[in-house]
Protein backbone atom coordinates (compact mmCIF):
# COMPACT_ATOMS: atom_id res chain seq x y z
CA UNK A 1 0.00 0.00 0.00
CA UNK A 2 1.17 3.40 -0.81
CA UNK A 3 1.82 5.67 2.02
CA UNK A 4 -1.17 7.94 2.16
CA UNK A 5 -0.74 8.78 5.77
CA UNK A 6 -0.72 12.48 4.93
CA UNK A 7 -4.18 12.51 3.33
CA UNK A 8 -5.93 9.98 5.49
CA UNK A 9 -5.91 11.86 8.79
CA UNK A 10 -7.30 14.95 7.08
CA UNK A 11 -10.10 13.12 5.43
CA UNK A 12 -10.78 11.13 8.52
CA UNK A 13 -10.94 14.28 10.59
CA UNK A 14 -13.36 15.98 8.25
CA UNK A 15 -15.60 13.19 7.09
CA UNK A 16 -15.97 9.48 7.10
CA UNK A 17 -16.57 9.51 3.35
CA UNK A 18 -13.50 8.84 1.24
CA UNK A 19 -13.48 10.50 -2.17
CA UNK A 20 -11.61 8.19 -4.47
CA UNK A 21 -11.28 10.96 -7.03
CA UNK A 22 -9.11 12.96 -4.65
CA UNK A 23 -7.10 9.93 -3.77
CA UNK A 24 -6.42 9.09 -7.42
CA UNK A 25 -5.46 12.71 -8.27
CA UNK A 26 -2.47 12.62 -6.04
CA UNK A 27 -0.79 9.84 -7.99
CA UNK A 28 -0.09 9.36 -11.67
CA UNK A 29 -0.47 5.67 -11.29
CA UNK A 30 -1.91 3.02 -9.07
CA UNK A 31 -0.66 2.19 -5.71
CA UNK A 32 0.77 -0.99 -7.00
CA UNK A 33 2.81 0.88 -9.65
CA UNK A 34 4.02 3.32 -7.11
CA UNK A 35 5.04 0.53 -4.87
CA UNK A 36 6.88 -1.15 -7.75
CA UNK A 37 8.82 1.99 -8.61
CA UNK A 38 9.94 2.52 -5.09
CA UNK A 39 10.66 -1.08 -4.34
CA UNK A 40 9.29 -3.14 -1.47
CA UNK A 41 7.00 -1.52 1.01
CA UNK A 42 9.42 -1.75 3.97
CA UNK A 43 12.30 -0.24 1.80
CA UNK A 44 10.48 3.04 1.09
CA UNK A 45 9.82 3.65 4.78
CA UNK A 46 13.47 2.90 5.55
CA UNK A 47 14.60 5.28 2.79
CA UNK A 48 12.55 8.14 4.18
CA UNK A 49 13.91 7.40 7.66
CA UNK A 50 17.47 7.59 6.34
CA UNK A 51 16.72 10.89 4.64
CA UNK A 52 15.20 12.24 7.77
CA UNK A 53 18.20 11.19 9.83
CA UNK A 54 20.59 12.68 7.24
CA UNK A 55 18.66 15.95 7.21
CA UNK A 56 18.64 16.17 10.98
CA UNK A 57 22.35 15.34 11.13
CA UNK A 58 23.11 18.05 8.59
CA UNK A 59 21.08 20.59 10.53
CA UNK A 60 22.80 19.69 13.78
CA UNK A 61 26.28 19.89 12.29
CA UNK A 62 25.48 23.25 10.67
CA UNK A 63 24.19 24.56 13.96
CA UNK A 64 27.27 23.32 15.81
CA UNK A 65 29.65 24.90 13.29
CA UNK A 66 27.71 28.19 13.44
CA UNK A 67 27.77 28.24 17.24
CA UNK A 68 31.49 27.43 17.36
CA UNK A 69 32.26 30.17 14.82
CA UNK A 70 30.18 32.70 16.73
CA UNK A 71 31.92 31.84 19.99
CA UNK A 72 35.34 32.23 18.36
CA UNK A 73 34.38 35.58 16.88
CA UNK A 74 33.05 36.84 20.21
CA UNK A 75 36.21 35.68 22.00
CA UNK A 76 38.43 37.39 19.40
CA UNK A 77 36.41 40.61 19.63
CA UNK A 78 36.58 40.65 23.44
CA UNK A 79 40.34 40.08 23.24
CA UNK A 80 41.36 42.46 20.45
CA UNK A 81 38.40 44.82 20.16
CA UNK A 82 38.54 45.84 23.79
CA UNK A 83 40.02 49.29 23.87
CA UNK A 84 41.38 48.72 27.37
CA UNK A 85 44.35 46.85 25.89
CA UNK A 86 45.74 50.29 24.98
CA UNK A 87 45.65 51.55 28.57
CA UNK A 88 49.24 50.55 29.48
CA UNK A 89 50.55 52.65 26.57
CA UNK A 90 49.05 55.84 28.02
CA UNK A 91 50.49 55.36 31.50
CA UNK A 92 53.25 58.01 31.45
CA UNK A 93 54.52 60.87 33.55
CA UNK A 94 55.07 64.42 32.26
CA UNK A 95 58.86 64.30 32.75
CA UNK A 96 59.05 61.05 30.73
CA UNK A 97 57.25 62.63 27.79
CA UNK A 98 59.51 65.68 27.93
CA UNK A 99 62.64 63.52 28.01
CA UNK A 100 61.51 61.36 25.12
CA UNK A 101 60.64 64.42 23.03
CA UNK A 102 64.12 65.85 23.52
CA UNK A 103 65.75 62.49 22.85
CA UNK A 104 63.97 62.24 19.51
CA UNK A 105 66.40 64.94 18.29
CA UNK A 106 69.52 63.27 19.73
CA UNK A 107 70.68 60.37 17.58
CA UNK A 108 73.10 57.80 18.97
CA UNK A 109 75.70 55.89 17.03
CA UNK A 110 74.54 52.36 16.30
CA UNK A 111 76.37 49.77 18.36
CA UNK A 112 75.98 46.16 19.30
CA UNK A 113 73.74 47.21 22.18
CA UNK A 114 70.04 47.58 21.35
CA UNK A 115 68.81 51.15 21.54
CA UNK A 116 65.66 51.56 23.56
CA UNK A 117 62.38 51.91 21.67
CA UNK A 118 59.55 53.01 23.95
CA UNK A 119 56.13 51.38 23.98
CA UNK A 120 54.06 54.46 24.48
CA UNK A 121 51.25 56.13 22.56
CA UNK A 122 50.45 59.31 24.52
CA UNK A 123 53.47 61.32 23.34
CA UNK A 124 53.24 60.25 19.67
CA UNK A 125 49.49 60.94 19.64
CA UNK A 126 50.06 64.43 21.02
CA UNK A 127 52.78 65.08 18.44
CA UNK A 128 50.41 64.03 15.64
CA UNK A 129 47.64 66.26 17.01
CA UNK A 130 50.15 69.12 17.23
CA UNK A 131 51.11 68.55 13.61
CA UNK A 132 47.42 68.66 12.65
CA UNK A 133 46.95 71.93 14.53
CA UNK A 134 50.04 73.42 12.87
CA UNK A 135 48.83 72.36 9.43
CA UNK A 136 45.49 74.03 10.16
CA UNK A 137 47.35 77.15 11.25
CA UNK A 138 49.42 77.07 8.07
CA UNK A 139 46.38 76.56 5.83
CA UNK A 140 44.40 79.28 7.61
CA UNK A 141 47.31 81.70 7.32
CA UNK A 142 47.68 80.90 3.62
CA UNK A 143 43.89 81.03 3.06
CA UNK A 144 44.26 77.61 1.53
CA UNK A 145 40.97 76.34 0.14
CA UNK A 146 40.19 72.65 -0.06
CA UNK A 147 37.65 71.64 -2.66
CA UNK A 148 35.24 68.84 -1.79
CA UNK A 149 36.58 68.64 1.76
CA UNK A 150 37.42 70.53 4.89
CA UNK A 151 40.70 71.82 6.23
CA UNK A 152 40.36 69.73 9.37
CA UNK A 153 39.50 66.59 7.42
CA UNK A 154 42.49 67.12 5.15
CA UNK A 155 44.88 67.63 8.05
CA UNK A 156 43.56 64.60 9.94
CA UNK A 157 43.69 62.43 6.86
CA UNK A 158 47.22 63.42 5.91
CA UNK A 159 48.74 63.05 9.37
CA UNK A 160 47.06 59.85 10.50
CA UNK A 161 47.54 58.19 7.11
CA UNK A 162 51.25 58.94 7.26
CA UNK A 163 51.57 57.75 10.88
CA UNK A 164 49.67 54.51 10.56
CA UNK A 165 50.53 53.82 6.94
CA UNK A 166 54.27 54.22 7.43
CA UNK A 167 54.13 52.17 10.64
CA UNK A 168 52.32 49.38 8.80
CA UNK A 169 54.84 49.44 5.95
CA UNK A 170 57.79 49.43 8.32
CA UNK A 171 56.23 46.63 10.35
CA UNK A 172 55.90 44.54 7.21
CA UNK A 173 59.49 45.26 6.15
CA UNK A 174 60.70 44.55 9.70
CA UNK A 175 58.93 41.22 9.57
CA UNK A 176 60.53 40.40 6.23
CA UNK A 177 63.98 41.59 7.34
CA UNK A 178 63.66 39.95 10.77
CA UNK A 179 64.11 43.13 12.80
CA UNK A 180 63.41 42.93 16.51
CA UNK A 181 60.86 45.69 16.79
CA UNK A 182 57.13 45.57 17.46
CA UNK A 183 54.30 47.54 15.88
CA UNK A 184 53.75 49.65 19.03
CA UNK A 185 57.44 50.53 19.11
CA UNK A 186 57.28 51.57 15.46
CA UNK A 187 54.21 53.72 16.10
CA UNK A 188 55.98 55.34 19.04
CA UNK A 189 59.22 55.88 17.08
CA UNK A 190 57.48 57.41 14.07
CA UNK A 191 55.23 59.53 16.26
CA UNK A 192 58.10 61.06 18.19
CA UNK A 193 59.98 61.50 14.89
CA UNK A 194 57.21 63.86 13.74
CA UNK A 195 58.33 66.34 16.39
CA UNK A 196 60.98 67.53 13.92
CA UNK A 197 58.28 68.14 11.33
CA UNK A 198 56.30 70.20 13.86
CA UNK A 199 59.30 72.43 14.56
CA UNK A 200 60.03 72.96 10.86
CA UNK A 201 56.41 73.77 9.99
CA UNK A 202 56.03 76.14 12.93
CA UNK A 203 59.21 78.07 12.11
CA UNK A 204 58.44 78.00 8.40
CA UNK A 205 54.97 79.48 8.95
CA UNK A 206 56.09 82.16 11.37
CA UNK A 207 59.12 83.24 9.32
CA UNK A 208 58.33 83.87 5.67
CA UNK A 209 61.11 84.18 3.13
CA UNK A 210 60.29 85.66 -0.24
CA UNK A 211 60.67 83.01 -2.99
CA UNK A 212 63.75 81.54 -1.37
CA UNK A 213 63.63 78.10 0.11
CA UNK A 214 67.11 78.11 1.60
CA UNK A 215 65.78 78.67 5.14
CA UNK A 216 63.33 75.82 4.77
CA UNK A 217 65.99 73.46 3.37
CA UNK A 218 68.24 74.37 6.28
CA UNK A 219 65.51 73.51 8.80
CA UNK A 220 64.67 70.37 6.82
CA UNK A 221 68.27 69.20 6.97
CA UNK A 222 68.78 70.01 10.65
CA UNK A 223 65.55 68.99 12.38
CA UNK A 224 64.36 66.50 9.81
CA UNK A 225 67.80 64.99 9.58
CA UNK A 226 68.26 64.67 13.35
CA UNK A 227 64.91 62.93 13.87
CA UNK A 228 65.58 60.66 10.89
CA UNK A 229 69.02 59.70 12.20
CA UNK A 230 67.50 58.91 15.59
CA UNK A 231 64.94 56.54 14.04
CA UNK A 232 67.54 54.95 11.77
CA UNK A 233 69.88 54.38 14.72
CA UNK A 234 67.17 52.57 16.70
CA UNK A 235 66.24 50.35 13.77
CA UNK A 236 69.85 49.54 12.86
CA UNK A 237 70.56 48.44 16.43
CA UNK A 238 67.68 45.98 16.19
CA UNK A 239 68.42 44.50 12.76
CA UNK A 240 71.05 42.01 11.65
CA UNK A 241 72.41 41.72 8.15
CA UNK A 242 73.73 44.46 5.88
CA UNK A 243 71.08 44.28 3.18
CA UNK A 244 68.25 44.16 5.71
CA UNK A 245 69.64 47.19 7.52
CA UNK A 246 70.01 49.04 4.22
CA UNK A 247 66.41 48.32 3.20
CA UNK A 248 64.90 49.43 6.49
CA UNK A 249 67.04 52.52 7.02
CA UNK A 250 66.64 53.82 3.45
CA UNK A 251 62.89 53.27 3.48
CA UNK A 252 62.24 55.07 6.73
CA UNK A 253 64.64 57.91 5.90
CA UNK A 254 63.14 58.46 2.45
CA UNK A 255 59.52 58.43 3.62
CA UNK A 256 60.20 60.63 6.64
CA UNK A 257 62.12 63.32 4.74
CA UNK A 258 59.86 63.27 1.68
CA UNK A 259 56.79 63.73 3.89
CA UNK A 260 58.22 66.98 5.23
CA UNK A 261 58.90 68.18 1.70
CA UNK A 262 55.32 67.32 0.78
CA UNK A 263 53.93 69.25 3.75
CA UNK A 264 55.93 72.30 2.78
CA UNK A 265 55.26 72.33 -0.95
CA UNK A 266 51.61 71.32 -0.70
CA UNK A 267 50.55 73.87 1.90
CA UNK A 268 53.20 76.46 2.61
CA UNK A 269 54.20 77.17 -0.98
CA UNK A 270 50.86 78.86 -1.52
CA UNK A 271 51.85 81.61 0.91
CA UNK A 272 54.98 82.31 -1.14
CA UNK A 273 53.06 82.36 -4.43
CA UNK A 274 50.43 84.71 -3.05
CA UNK A 275 53.00 87.11 -1.65
CA UNK A 276 54.91 87.07 -4.96
CA UNK A 277 51.74 87.83 -6.95
CA UNK A 278 50.65 90.63 -4.64
CA UNK A 279 54.09 92.30 -4.62
CA UNK A 280 54.67 92.26 -8.41
CA UNK A 281 55.10 95.76 -10.19
CA UNK A 282 52.72 95.61 -13.26
CA UNK A 283 49.71 95.34 -10.95
CA UNK A 284 50.75 98.52 -9.08
CA UNK A 285 51.40 100.64 -12.19
CA UNK A 286 48.04 100.04 -13.90
CA UNK A 287 46.02 102.78 -12.12
CA UNK A 288 48.66 105.41 -13.17
CA UNK A 289 48.24 104.48 -16.84
CA UNK A 290 44.48 104.92 -16.54
CA UNK A 291 44.94 108.36 -14.97
CA UNK A 292 47.32 109.44 -17.74
CA UNK A 293 44.77 108.48 -20.39
CA UNK A 294 42.06 110.51 -18.65
CA UNK A 295 44.36 113.54 -18.40
CA UNK A 296 45.20 113.41 -22.12
CA UNK A 297 41.55 113.07 -23.14
CA UNK A 298 40.56 116.10 -21.00
CA UNK A 299 43.42 118.14 -22.56
CA UNK A 300 42.10 117.48 -26.11
CA UNK A 301 38.65 118.59 -25.16
Amino acid sequence: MADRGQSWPTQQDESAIIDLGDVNDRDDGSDYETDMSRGPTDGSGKGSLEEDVRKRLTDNVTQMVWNAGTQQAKRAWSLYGNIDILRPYFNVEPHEVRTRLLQSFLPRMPSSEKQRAYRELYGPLMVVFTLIALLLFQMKAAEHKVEEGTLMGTAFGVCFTYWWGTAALMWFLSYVCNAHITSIQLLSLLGYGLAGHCVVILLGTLIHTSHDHLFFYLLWAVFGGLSTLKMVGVILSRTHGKSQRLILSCTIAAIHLLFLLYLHFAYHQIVEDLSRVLDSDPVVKQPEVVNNVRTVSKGEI
Partner: protein
Amino acid sequence: MLALCTIWQVKCLDVKRHQTLAVLNPFKAAEHDMMQDTDLAGPLVFCLAFGGSLMLCGKLQFGYIYGIGVVGCMAMYFLLNMMSLTGVSVGCVVSVLGYCLLPMVILSSSAVLLSLKGMIGIVLTVLAVVWCSFSSSKLFVSALSMENQQPLVAYPCGLVYGVFALLTVF
Protein backbone atom coordinates in the same frame (compact mmCIF):
# COMPACT_ATOMS: atom_id res chain seq x y z
CA MET B 1 4.67 70.06 41.88
CA LEU B 2 5.36 73.68 41.09
CA ALA B 3 7.54 73.92 44.16
CA LEU B 4 9.51 70.85 43.07
CA CYS B 5 10.07 72.33 39.60
CA THR B 6 11.17 75.60 41.13
CA ILE B 7 13.60 73.84 43.45
CA TRP B 8 14.98 71.84 40.52
CA GLN B 9 15.45 74.99 38.43
CA VAL B 10 17.17 76.78 41.30
CA LYS B 11 19.49 73.80 41.76
CA CYS B 12 20.35 73.78 38.05
CA LEU B 13 21.06 77.50 38.07
CA ASP B 14 23.19 77.02 41.17
CA VAL B 15 25.21 74.30 39.42
CA LYS B 16 25.71 76.52 36.40
CA ARG B 17 26.83 79.41 38.57
CA HIS B 18 29.36 77.25 40.45
CA GLN B 19 30.83 75.81 37.28
CA THR B 20 31.03 79.20 35.57
CA LEU B 21 32.78 80.68 38.58
CA ALA B 22 35.19 77.74 38.62
CA VAL B 23 36.16 78.60 35.04
CA LEU B 24 36.46 82.33 35.66
CA ASN B 25 38.79 81.78 38.62
CA PRO B 26 41.23 79.07 37.47
CA PHE B 27 43.43 79.42 40.56
CA LYS B 28 40.69 78.39 42.96
CA ALA B 29 40.73 74.71 43.86
CA ALA B 30 37.90 72.76 42.27
CA GLU B 31 35.68 70.48 44.30
CA HIS B 32 35.99 66.79 43.58
CA ASP B 33 32.26 66.26 43.04
CA MET B 34 31.65 69.48 41.11
CA MET B 35 31.39 67.61 37.82
CA GLN B 36 29.03 64.94 39.15
CA ASP B 37 26.09 67.01 37.86
CA THR B 38 26.86 67.13 34.17
CA ASP B 39 25.07 69.94 32.47
CA LEU B 40 24.81 70.51 28.73
CA ALA B 41 22.72 73.65 28.72
CA GLY B 42 25.59 75.85 29.86
CA PRO B 43 28.02 74.55 27.19
CA LEU B 44 25.33 74.98 24.55
CA VAL B 45 24.77 78.59 25.58
CA PHE B 46 28.51 79.28 25.47
CA CYS B 47 28.88 77.68 22.04
CA LEU B 48 26.00 79.74 20.69
CA ALA B 49 27.49 82.85 22.28
CA PHE B 50 30.84 82.02 20.64
CA GLY B 51 29.21 81.57 17.25
CA GLY B 52 27.18 84.72 17.74
CA SER B 53 30.19 86.84 18.61
CA LEU B 54 32.04 85.48 15.56
CA MET B 55 28.98 86.39 13.49
CA LEU B 56 29.33 89.95 14.73
CA CYS B 57 32.85 89.89 13.22
CA GLY B 58 31.42 88.78 9.88
CA LYS B 59 32.26 85.07 10.21
CA LEU B 60 29.56 82.42 10.03
CA GLN B 61 31.32 79.51 11.71
CA PHE B 62 28.59 77.57 13.52
CA GLY B 63 29.36 74.44 11.47
CA TYR B 64 33.05 74.63 12.29
CA ILE B 65 32.29 75.14 16.00
CA TYR B 66 30.07 72.06 15.97
CA GLY B 67 32.62 69.95 14.03
CA ILE B 68 35.62 70.97 16.09
CA GLY B 69 33.59 70.54 19.28
CA VAL B 70 32.52 67.01 18.39
CA VAL B 71 36.00 65.92 17.29
CA GLY B 72 37.64 67.55 20.32
CA CYS B 73 35.18 65.96 22.76
CA MET B 74 35.61 62.52 21.21
CA ALA B 75 39.41 62.80 21.33
CA MET B 76 39.40 63.97 24.96
CA TYR B 77 36.91 61.25 25.92
CA PHE B 78 39.17 58.58 24.42
CA LEU B 79 42.31 60.04 25.97
CA LEU B 80 40.89 60.51 29.47
CA ASN B 81 39.45 57.00 29.49
CA MET B 82 42.87 55.64 28.59
CA MET B 83 44.70 57.72 31.20
CA SER B 84 42.36 57.56 34.18
CA LEU B 85 41.64 54.59 36.41
CA THR B 86 37.96 55.32 36.93
CA GLY B 87 37.02 56.40 33.42
CA VAL B 88 34.90 59.40 32.45
CA SER B 89 31.53 59.85 30.79
CA VAL B 90 30.90 61.72 27.57
CA GLY B 91 28.60 64.13 29.38
CA CYS B 92 31.33 65.10 31.81
CA VAL B 93 33.80 65.76 28.98
CA VAL B 94 31.30 67.84 26.99
CA SER B 95 30.29 69.75 30.10
CA VAL B 96 33.85 70.63 31.14
CA LEU B 97 35.04 71.56 27.64
CA GLY B 98 31.88 73.58 27.05
CA TYR B 99 32.06 75.58 30.25
CA CYS B 100 35.76 76.27 29.75
CA LEU B 101 34.97 77.85 26.38
CA LEU B 102 33.97 81.01 28.26
CA PRO B 103 37.36 82.77 27.90
CA MET B 104 37.23 82.07 24.16
CA VAL B 105 33.81 83.75 24.06
CA ILE B 106 35.35 86.78 25.76
CA LEU B 107 38.19 86.76 23.19
CA SER B 108 35.82 86.57 20.22
CA SER B 109 33.74 89.38 21.69
CA SER B 110 36.87 91.53 21.96
CA ALA B 111 37.59 90.74 18.29
CA VAL B 112 34.59 92.94 17.44
CA LEU B 113 36.42 95.97 18.78
CA LEU B 114 40.05 95.29 17.95
CA SER B 115 42.05 93.24 15.46
CA LEU B 116 43.55 90.04 16.79
CA LYS B 117 46.28 89.87 14.15
CA GLY B 118 48.43 92.47 15.84
CA MET B 119 50.75 92.01 18.81
CA ILE B 120 48.00 92.78 21.37
CA GLY B 121 45.69 90.29 19.65
CA ILE B 122 48.32 87.56 19.71
CA VAL B 123 48.96 88.12 23.42
CA LEU B 124 45.22 88.07 24.18
CA THR B 125 44.79 84.89 22.12
CA VAL B 126 47.61 83.10 23.89
CA LEU B 127 46.24 84.19 27.27
CA ALA B 128 42.76 82.95 26.39
CA VAL B 129 44.04 79.57 25.23
CA VAL B 130 46.15 79.15 28.37
CA TRP B 131 43.19 80.20 30.57
CA CYS B 132 40.84 77.71 28.87
CA SER B 133 43.27 74.79 29.02
CA PHE B 134 44.26 75.50 32.63
CA SER B 135 40.63 75.67 33.77
CA SER B 136 39.57 72.54 31.91
CA SER B 137 42.58 70.51 33.06
CA LYS B 138 41.97 71.62 36.65
CA LEU B 139 38.36 70.39 36.48
CA PHE B 140 39.34 67.10 34.82
CA VAL B 141 42.12 66.23 37.27
CA SER B 142 39.96 67.11 40.28
CA ALA B 143 37.14 64.91 38.98
CA LEU B 144 39.42 61.99 38.01
CA SER B 145 42.08 62.28 40.76
CA MET B 146 44.99 62.76 38.35
CA GLU B 147 46.81 65.65 40.03
CA ASN B 148 50.30 64.53 38.96
CA GLN B 149 49.22 64.40 35.32
CA GLN B 150 47.67 67.84 34.93
CA PRO B 151 50.20 68.95 32.26
CA LEU B 152 49.38 65.83 30.24
CA VAL B 153 45.67 66.71 30.38
CA ALA B 154 46.23 70.43 29.80
CA TYR B 155 48.15 70.01 26.57
CA PRO B 156 45.40 68.31 24.50
CA CYS B 157 42.87 70.77 25.95
CA GLY B 158 45.20 73.54 24.78
CA LEU B 159 45.23 72.04 21.29
CA VAL B 160 41.42 71.97 21.13
CA TYR B 161 41.10 75.55 22.30
CA GLY B 162 43.96 76.55 20.01
CA VAL B 163 41.91 75.39 17.04
CA PHE B 164 38.98 77.46 18.33
CA ALA B 165 41.39 80.39 18.57
CA LEU B 166 42.31 79.88 14.91
CA LEU B 167 38.63 80.31 14.05
CA THR B 168 38.55 83.53 16.03
CA VAL B 169 41.75 85.06 14.65
CA PHE B 170 41.59 84.05 10.95
